[in-house]
């Protein structure tokens, strides 16, 4: 790339980032208790974010953001109202956990017995990788000098077909 073109490209990227950072700064910060209420756009975004994590008590596999039921709509209105009053998303979630229990969260909190849900899959994947690595190494290990090809462990217990 010629120096002038490179400079133009760099300038473009710098302006883009500066513009994005500026737009981000203009959004009201999510309300702390007693902090100014969020802007309309931010309020909708926060409402959507919190509602997407709360389970609909009627259609239980769906969030109150996605559920078409009347109760979900009413719960969503409670979320919006509390956020508009300056409560934080965590405080709003706390209100629903207080009323419905941990079950109201679509994703269980990673603590206590619930940790298993998050840890076990990774443990299983890691174990699987280790087993595969160990097996492949065993299968591809160089044979002792003079040993026939049929002495190679295949891992399947079957004999290999060799001429």
């Amino acid at each position: 790339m010629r120096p002038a073109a490179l400079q133009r490209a760099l300038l473009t990227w710098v302006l883009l980032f500066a513009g994005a950072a500026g737009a981000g700064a203009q959004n009201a910060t999510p309300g702390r208790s007693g902090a100014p209420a969020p802007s309309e756009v931010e309020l909708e975004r926060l409402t959507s974010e919190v509602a997407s994590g709360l389970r609909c008590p009627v259609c239980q596999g769906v969030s109150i953001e996605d559920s078409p039921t009347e109760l979900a709509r009413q719960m969503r209105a409670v979320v919006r109202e509390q956020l508009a009053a300056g409560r934080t998303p965590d405080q709003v979630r706390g209100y629903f956990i207080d009323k419905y229990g941990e079950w109201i969260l679509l994703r269980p909190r990673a603590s206590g017995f619930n940790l298993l849900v998050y840890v076990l899959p990774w443990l299983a994947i890691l174990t699987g990788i280790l087993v595969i690595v160990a097996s492949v190494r065993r299968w591809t290990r160089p044979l002792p000098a003079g040993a026939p090809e049929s002495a190679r462990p295949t891992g399947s217990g079957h004999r290999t077909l060799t001429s």
Partner: protein
Amino acid sequence: MSWRRALIAAAVTLPLLGLLAFGMTRNPNAIPSTMPGREAPAFELVTMPLDEREVPETVDLSALRGNVVVLNFWASWCVACRDEHEPLSRVARAYEGRPVRFFGVVYNDSPENAREWIEAMGGQSYSALIDPDSRTAIDYGLYGVPETFIIGPDGRVRHKIIGPATEPELRARIDALLPEAT
């Protein structure tokens, strides 16, 4: 098959099977309620007049301290609510004059439908309350109807009945709490 492999396989699969077996003993539909034992959420709800002569009045839960309060959530579109209507009315009548108050909170329903339903069911011996936007229902952690909360004279939720309330259970719960009433 070597014993070593068998042992490793068992060591891996048995705990997993144990965890799954434990999971099978739990009922995913039995959602535990956070309410029993805690202060009943406050409310001020307006009664729904059952005829033109009745004047709506405001019911404030805090003013009912000292009474056993039976708070039943119901709707005209709720099939199971039909089963408990007669027992609720009968028990409410049986405890008239004693420190026991019954209320039927209308849940996600129009007053017209609710009134028609009560009329079709032969009337109701206690007041129906209107809950705008289900705020009180959400405050009580309601996830369906019918649900009945029995609030003690101390203002705490003492029991939550999920599904149609029966006369024996209502009487047993109320009788157990009456000694505390003032």
